[in-house]
């Protein structure tokens, strides 16, 4: 900025603020973002003293990618509309998948039930009452064949929200592809496979951190050779935010997890450019519109700089951060649930203005149950309205250059850097997990947020303001038939009677051997699933080698 214009602006701004303070003494009242970041009443070029357009923003599709990862963004291709779905049996979810594809969805996203996520078969003692509840129950290749029946795997891309047993689900998907005559090279999709955020927030782990990290580098290595179009990890801030973190914590912890995977890959002997282009990210879209947009923009900038400068990646594809976004489940209210349609729409718009590559919009009934078909349709239509009617997809990074958005982007960036320093001081992400650092930071932020609602410092429509007395919720709820559990047990019993036991035990023994000898475990997992070993059996084989992780209960 030229000095003369700087002086002029500074003078004008001082005059504005004097007048404002004289007329409106409430200006001293503190306003913050939903995460507690202080907000000025007005932003001007004076907030961007050190801002450098080329260095800090660049151009879309160019380093440092602040404005977006593609040069033509949504004019070239809209984001993928990817609704997360899964409940009941594989056949139930297969029907929902086909419904979504028929209504214009462009990619699949699979939700698994709790026993599957934790590596237990449906007939395990701990699975009681949970089979098919929060997602689809998958016990063996047989279930996976039904799940994708009639869906050609070379025509869709499939995201699987699976972490601790991610390697097994990848193997199952490859095996279904083989049955459909599709080679692993043609498969497109994403494994969540982000165990670090499991320890930090979502809490679905099986083994201690070290063997889990080994399984992840095995997947990275295997996919680089055999499944080149597969996104091996979806490094996730979503669950960190849902557990109650602030936007800066979500940003910082997610990127710190990402750096940890990169370092693990390099330590395992891989060239960073062989695996980094297949890393993807997954963020939350919460209610604070501008803070979220700033978060996505800062995320791209931080990632590209670290990948190029710190980890010395040479391939530009290793520098750019592609991410999926899901609107915030924790922002939905059980009160006046129809209002959630609006909440989700604003959140989705922030993700689009922030340059997301794919998007899941929550259904308005999700504070009450798994979504019904009607609610899912409204959620998908919300994205289609944004895409085709609002004009938001016509111009790249339309808020770029806004004094406010740029200042907030810088604030997000700085806040994340402060956390990286603290994480470094405690010895890195895994040490932080073991010391309970992340868990305590998030629990404190969650409690502070809850207090701000209870003290009415923050208003939520229908919850602490504009309530309806004696409200009766009158929406249809999706119910999961308890008979699913029994039928899943019977199918498992039947499968175990039919398959060749010797092939199963042989494959499991080989897998244990590979684990003990620190070899890549994916080929043996693939052998085991082809022989119809169950998910629980494969996990048990590895539990014998690795043991299980226990978290100290901190609150």
């Amino acid at each position, binding site marked *: 900025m030229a000095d003369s214009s700087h002086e002029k602006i500074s003078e004008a701004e001082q005059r504005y603020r004097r007048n404002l303070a004289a007329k409106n003494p409430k200006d001293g009242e503190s306003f913050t973002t939903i995460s507690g970041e202080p907000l000025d009443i007005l932003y001007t070029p004076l907030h961007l003293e050190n801002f450098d357009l080329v260095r800090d923003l660049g151009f879309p599709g160019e380093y440092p990618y602040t404005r977006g990862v593609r040069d033509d963004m949504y004019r070239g291709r809209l984001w993928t509309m990817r609704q997360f779905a899964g409940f009941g049996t594989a056949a139930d979810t297969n029907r929902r998948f086909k419904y979504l594809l028929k209504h214009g969805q462009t990619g699949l996203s699979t939700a698994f039930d*709790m*026993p599957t*996520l*934790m590596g*237990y078969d449906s007939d395990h*003692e*701990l*699975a*009681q*009452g*949970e089979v098919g*509840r*929060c997602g689809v129950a998958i016990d063996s290749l047989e279930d996976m064949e039904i799940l994708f029946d009639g869906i050609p795997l070379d025509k869709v891309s499939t995201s699987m929200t699976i972490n601790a047993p991610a390697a097994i689900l990848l193997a199952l998907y490859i095996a279904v592809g083989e049955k459909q005559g599709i080679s692993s090279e043609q498969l497109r999709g994403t494994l969540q496979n982000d165990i670090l955020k*499991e320890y930090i927030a*979502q*809490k*679905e782990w099986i083994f201690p951190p070290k063997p889990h990290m080994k399984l992840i580098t095995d997947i990275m290595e295997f996919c680089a050779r055999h499944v080149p179009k597969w996104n091996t990890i979806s490094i996730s801030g979503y669950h960190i935010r*849902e*557990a*109650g973190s602030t936007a800066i914590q979500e940003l910082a912890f997610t990127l710190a997890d990402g750096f940890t995977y990169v370092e693990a890959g390099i330590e395992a002997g891989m060239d960073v450019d062989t695996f980094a282009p297949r890393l993807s990210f997954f963020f939350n879209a919460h209610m604070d519109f501008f803070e979220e947009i700033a978060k996505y923009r800062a995320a791209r900038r931080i990632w590209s700089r670290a990948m190029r400068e710190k980890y010395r990646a040479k391939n530009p594809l290793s520098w750019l951060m592609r991410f999926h976004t899901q609107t915030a489940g*924790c922002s939905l*209210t*059980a*009160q006046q649930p129809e209002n959630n349609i609006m909440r989700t729409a604003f959140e989705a718009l922030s993700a689009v203005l922030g340059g997301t590559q794919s998007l899941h919009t929550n259904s308005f009934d999700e*504070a*009450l*149950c798994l979504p019904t078909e009607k609610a899912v349709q409204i959620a998908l239509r919300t994205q289609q309205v944004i895409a085709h009617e609002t004009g938001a997809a016509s111009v790249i990074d339309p808020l770029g250059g806004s004094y406010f958005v740029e200042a907030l982007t810088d604030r997000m960036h700085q806040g994340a850097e402060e956390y990286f320093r603290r994480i470094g001081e405690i010895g890195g992400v895994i040490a932080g997990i073991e010391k309970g650092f992340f868990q305590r930071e998030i*629990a404190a932020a*969650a*409690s502070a947020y*809850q207090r701000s*609602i*209870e003290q009415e410092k923050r208003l939520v429509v*229908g*919850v602490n303001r504009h309530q309806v007395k004696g409200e009766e*919720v009158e929406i249809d*709820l999706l119910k*999961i038939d308890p008979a699913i559990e029994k039928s899943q047990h019977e199918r498992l019993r039947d499968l175990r009677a039919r398959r060749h036991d010797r092939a199963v035990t042989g494959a499991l023994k080989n897998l244990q051997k590979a684990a003990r000898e620190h070899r890549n475990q994916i080929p043996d997992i693939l052998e085991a699933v082809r022989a119809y070993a169950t998910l629980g059996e494969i996990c048990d084989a590895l539990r014998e080698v690795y043991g299980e992780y226990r*978290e*100290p*209960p901190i*609150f």
Partner: protein
Amino acid sequence: MDRKIRVLIAKPGLDGHDRGAKIVASALRDAGMEVIYTGLRQTPEMIVGAAVQEDVDVIGISILSGAHMTIFSRVMDLLKEQGADLEVVVCGGGIIPTEDREKLEDIGVRGLFGPGTTTGEIIEFIRTAVTDKTA
């Protein structure tokens, strides 16, 4: 009453969403209660065992997975076997549809708190329920 109210906050089943359980645990502690948090993945047997061993007045169970019918029923049965069903106030929080809520109240679950509940309401409920029990 001299003794502090003792509360066991329990997180049964496989679900790891512990944001609510932790917020409630710390709010009850701040309100002067003695709080024991079980941590994740507790079976009904472990929960009732801990409740009896710790001699608690209240068990608060957090369930978001949809497994509430199975888990609450089992907890109530086990408490009955131990002869502790009238001694301990069982309450819970999570996403529990109205019709299930009525069934759970029929088997003796005293308070069920859904989304939007304030920690103040839970503290008030526990104080009243424990006073009624000892009165």
